[in-house]
């Protein structure tokens, strides 16, 4: 213990003598650690953001879109033509054993007016299952009921953004708003949901009963058709199975065969989102790896300067050996010096990394997540770099022949 303390004192003195050199040597480590901390914080922030968004969509979801992805070289694009019907949705609900809920939707945009306020937003026709599938609770009021759908009532539930813009802080329940000039009664207010993985504001929405939307708002030449259907499987395990059941049922209902191409697309939403989560994780690992390289470069700088230091102080090493320093005393002395360099550099780097990450999240509105774990690991890593790159020079010093070291000029 006393020797470690002595080595520390000697190391501090040696660094004080060459302040500028010590600082320049540490720079590599400072930059390396700062980069690692900042990159990991940014990467972790991004992947947390994505996983939050994924859970905001709901779990175990399939998305069925009208139209095919490819049709004979000509891309129609999913959602192109209205081929899905409300009856399809009900058939899926009753005939596919792996399916828990089906939420057919009709979607359009509309001008909303309340008093002298007006607001342009997305209006979605849906069934009661919508909020279940999306795992989306209400702040106040009630959900759209099946009788609302069947009776095509002029009731609606609104998202937080719409509520803020039309009502400010006032309670929206029971208020009459006009959607495309048709009066609707607000029966429910949705909880805050935040951004979607695509970056749109999910709270900027109004839900109306499906039938109401089909007949009164977006009346088309095909009154019974629906746009996208969201389907929730009974569990993650049967998601794949549900996908197959839905496709098979729709193939049968739409008489899809060798001579007729599919007029719908089933997408595994959870899978798509999981992939994007995965890729953000890979991204943060990659960023961390790139940052680690600068740490290794910093370590090599430490090794270089320690070798110089050993050569410069050969005579000192000789003196110490002549008066009784053992090899391990010399080894410890130089190792301590290297570790001191890297850990001091590491601490400064951590500070800069944290500040950098906070600056990024402030300036670029990009979330960052600084974990104590990352800080502890970075600290241990910087000490490890000191031991690893300081060992060779320290051993070189310890192995010097005392007579030759004493004679060194």
């Amino acid at each position, binding site marked *: 213990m006393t*020797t470690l303390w*002595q080595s520390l004192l000697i190391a501090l003195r040696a660094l004080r003598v060459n302040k500028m050199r010590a600082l320049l040597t540490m720079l590599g480590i400072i930059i390396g650690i700062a980069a690692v901390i900042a990159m990991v914080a940014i990467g972790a922030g991004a992947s947390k953001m994505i996983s939050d968004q994924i859970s905001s969509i709901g779990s175990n979801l399939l998305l069925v879109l009208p139209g095919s992805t490819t049709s004979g070289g000509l891309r129609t694009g999913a959602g192109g033509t209205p081929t899905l019907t409300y009856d399809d949705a009900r058939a899926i609900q009753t005939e596919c054993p792996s399916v828990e809920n089906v939420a057919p939707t009709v979607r359009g945009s509309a001008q909303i007016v309340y008093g002298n306020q007006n607001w342009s937003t997305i209006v979605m026709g849906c069934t009661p299952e919508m909020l279940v599938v999306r795992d989306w609770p209400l702040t106040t009021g009630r959900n759209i009921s099946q009788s609302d759908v069947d009776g095509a009532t002029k009731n609606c539930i609104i998202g937080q953004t719409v509520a803020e813009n039309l009502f400010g802080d006032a309670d929206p329940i029971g208020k009459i708003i006009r959607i495309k000039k048709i009066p609707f009664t607000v029966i429910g207010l949705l909880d805050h949901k935040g951004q979607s993985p695509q970056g749109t504001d999910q709270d900027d929405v109004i839900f109306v009963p499906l039938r109401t939307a089909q007949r009164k708002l977006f009346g088309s030449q095909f009154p019974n058709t629906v746009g996208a259907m969201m389907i929730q499987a009974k569990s993650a395990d049967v998601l794949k199975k549900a996908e197959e059941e839905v496709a098979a049922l729709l193939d049968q209902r739409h008489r899809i065969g060798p001579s007729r191409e599919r007029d719908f697309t089933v997408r595994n939403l959870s899978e798509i989102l999981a992939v994007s989560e995965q890729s953000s994780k890979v991204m943060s690992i990659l960023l961390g790896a790139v940052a680690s390289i600068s740490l290794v470069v910093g370590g090599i700088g430490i090794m270089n300067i320690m070798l110089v230091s050993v050569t410069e102080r050969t005579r*000192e090493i000789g003196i*110490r*050996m002549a*008066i*009784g*320093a053992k090899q*391990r005393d010399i080894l410890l002395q130089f190792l301590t010096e290297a570790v001191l360099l890297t850990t001091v550099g590491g601490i400064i780097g951590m500070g800069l990394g944290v500040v950098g990450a906070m600056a990024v999240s402030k300036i670029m509105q990009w979330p960052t997540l600084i974990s104590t774990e990352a800080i502890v690991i970075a600290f241990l890593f910087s000490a490890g770099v000191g031991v690893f790159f300081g060992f060779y020079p320290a051993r070189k010093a310890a192995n010097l022949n005392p007579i030759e070291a004493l004679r060194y000029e």
Partner: protein
Amino acid sequence: MGEVVKITDVTKVYTMGDQRVEALRGVSFTVRQGEFVAIMGASGSGKSTCMNMLGCLDVPTSGEYLLEGVNVGGLSRNELAEIRNNKIGFVFQGFNLLPRTTARENVELPLVYARMPAAARRERALAALERVGLAGRADHYSNQLSGGQQQRVAIARALVNEPAIIMADEPTGNLDSRTTVEIMAIFQELNRHGITILMVTHEPDVAAFTGRHLVFRDGTIIADTPNPSPAVAVTHEEAP
């Protein structure tokens, strides 16, 4: 009186490529407790080689070396370091103090490697500096001291561990004649208190202060003569 150093038939051969240099060719002698011995001889005669070996900085090619009756041959590097630490005090021609370090810290150094607690170290170092007349310079940095003062710090450092023997290789080689006498006065004073000293010197004037002259030539001892009435070193301060 016990034998502090006893070497028998010691040789040292340096091989550099296919060249062999026989620096020592069968040297035997004994140094008893309390002796003050001068080692003399022409340049290249093997004096430093012998001193390095006696100081356990180097090992002989052949022959036996007993230090206080303990056979030093075949000891590991660590064990030799321990012997240097607690049985031997070195004084070099070039002083060899650590730069940017105070006199006291320099003197404390052997005690640091002996794992002595700081308070005891400080006390011993100050006492050793007192013995060489530098009590007032304890906190001066080594580069703020004159050559003579630096050598006195080095002597204090050699003393501080109460070694069996002090080995000095041309301790006055870098000093003027007046300072040389000062250093010799310190050695004589220490020797009067029973400390054994082995000193290499070129100058007969310096050797005159010792009690025995060992003369080297071509790696062997050609003369070993006692000096029954050594000159007394009198420094100017002490002169009437």
